[in-house]
């Protein structure tokens, strides 16, 4: 038994990592829906979900149970094989993309093996290209769902989605070329490493990030990425006022949930990519010499935990008065653990900054949905082809000239 374990250690570690990441991503997805509903509700002066559990915190569980137990009818006249394949394809590709993201700089030493955060090997040389390859296939989930449903509105949604994705994929790919030129590699870890050290004016920390020299590239990338994930204000494939629910009109129950999870997972992937490519990934915005900032994660966690406890003891329902202080104690306790164990605190610095940046981008996603009206179809096409693509090409040419004249740094 032990010999079997040691012989296949890499394989076993990878399988455990996949299971763990799957659990984390799916839970994050569930609470992202809660977060989105809450934020959009507050933008519109509403309360959002607040019936199921304190502050509606158990709403995602209720939604999940509902998705599982609903009837799942197959409409008449659908192309059975493609109809069932489409949600599977969408979900699988969305989840595969997140396997390429590295989540922390240092490995954990466990049972004599260096275990890196993130599933893909740390020296995956085509990191960003592999991600683009997976997102390039992602369009099939939506397009085929629209086509195979044998219904007008889904077909319109599928067509819109394919046209939109073809148009924006060019700008998406061109906009990161500037970053790749500056880093000289496709490897996501090396792209982050290239952002460490002195940046503009030789200042440390946040000034080394790619966002300063690549502001135009970031703008093109973020807009194109939102369009690629079919989110507002580019959510024409599922424009509910025009197309009922777009490509997923004929899907119910868990097959609908699969599209839903795929969309939210893509949001997380794009947020990871934005943080890694333009905002220094797991690098701290402060200079390395400011060691006191290493207590920032603990300070934030403990403060947030105490606030949740304070909020919880005044909550209306008994469940809330039990659940919220418990949750707050857990969060504050986590912060205390980081303070008490310096080794742990050192290890979580990278993941803390990366996760904070991802969280900010997810908030921006939701914020945009709550703020901006949807594009008209011709505006969408004109914007992609006449503004985004030329802008990203200008960015590539300018970056190349600057690097040719003054070197990469």
């Amino acid at each position: 038994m032990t010999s079997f374990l040691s012989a296949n250690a890499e394989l076993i570690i990878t399988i455990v990592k996949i299971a763990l990441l799957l659990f984390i991503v799916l839970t994050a997805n569930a609470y992202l829906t809660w977060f989105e509903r809450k934020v959009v509700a507050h933008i519109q002066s509403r309360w959002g979900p607040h019936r199921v559990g304190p502050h509606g915190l158990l709403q995602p569980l209720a939604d999940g149970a509902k998705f599982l137990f609903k009837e799942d009818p197959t409409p008449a006249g659908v192309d059975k094989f493609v109809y069932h394949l489409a949600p599977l394809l969408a979900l699988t590709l969305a989840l595969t993309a997140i396997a390429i993201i590295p989540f922390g700089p240092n490995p954990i030493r466990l049972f004599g093996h260096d275990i890196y955060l993130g599933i893909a090997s740390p020296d995956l040389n085509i990191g960003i290209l592999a991600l683009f390859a997976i997102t390039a296939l992602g369009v099939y989930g939506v397009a085929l769902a629209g086509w195979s449903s044998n219904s007008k509105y889904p077909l319109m949604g599928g067509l819109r989605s394919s046209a939109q994705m073809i148009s924006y994929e060019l700008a998406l790919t061109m906009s990161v070329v500037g970053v790749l030129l500056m880093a000289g590699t496709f490897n996501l870890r090396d792209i982050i490493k290239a952002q460490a050290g002195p940046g503009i004016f030789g200042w440390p920390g946040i000034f080394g990030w790619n966002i300063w020299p690549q502001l135009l590239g970031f703008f093109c990338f973020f807009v194109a990425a939102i369009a690629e994930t079919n989110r507002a204000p580019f959510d024409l494939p599922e424009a509910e006022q025009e197309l009922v629910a777009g490509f997923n009109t004929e899907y119910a129950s868990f097959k609908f949930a699969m599209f839903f999870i795929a969309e939210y997972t893509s949001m997380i992937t794009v947020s990871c990519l934005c943080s890694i490519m333009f905002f220094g990934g797991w690098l701290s915005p402060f200079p390395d010499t400011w060691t006191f900032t290493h207590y920032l994660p603990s300070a934030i966690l403990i403060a947030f935990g105490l606030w949740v406890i304070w909020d919880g003891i005044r909550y209306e329902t008994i469940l809330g008065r039990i659940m919220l202080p418990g949750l707050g104690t857990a969060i504050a306790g986590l912060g205390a653990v980081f303070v008490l164990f310096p080794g742990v605190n050192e290890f979580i610095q990278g993941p803390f900054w990366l996760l904070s940046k991802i969280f900010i981008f997810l908030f921006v996603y939701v914020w945009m949905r709550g703020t901006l009206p949807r594009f008209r179809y011709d505006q969408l096409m004109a914007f992609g082809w006449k503004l985004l693509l030329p802008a990203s090409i200008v960015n590539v040419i300018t970056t190349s000239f600057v690097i040719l004249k003054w070197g990469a740094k």
Partner: protein
Amino acid sequence: MTPQLAVFFVLAALAVAGAISLILQKHPIHSALSLIVVMVALAGLYLLLGAEFVAAVQIIVYGGAIMVLFVFVIMLLNAGVEEHTSISKMAGGPGLLLVVALGGFIAATIARSSESVQAAEQTGTLSSTRGISSMIFKDFVYPFELTSFLILVAILGATVLAQREKS
């Protein structure tokens, strides 16, 4: 059997099965899907040879962009199930002969140079992005630019042909 060889056989079988399915499927969308399977399986084979860049580009360009256009056009035209005609005389006689000739040619080539075919580990210029780019932009820069120019002319031609008449 090494794991690499096992993966090779799985991918090769997938590619061949996809290619056969591409011809036998009655509906255009199903044929397009089969072609995507072939493209992705080929990308897997490139990856197995250590040509990571080529594999990624294979999926991005062929699996993604080009096949999405295929699917898009089929969906837009709402093409239905194709009628199957009996094998034409052209395909029956000379076609079969050509298949035999091509198969024989490939078999002969493989038999003649068995060593170079077995040398699967590509560690030369083709494996790295740097190697490919220096080949394209240094060694073969004129043919490459000429091809780009040709494609540009084709795009302009297509745009002119598709343009509405100015009234």
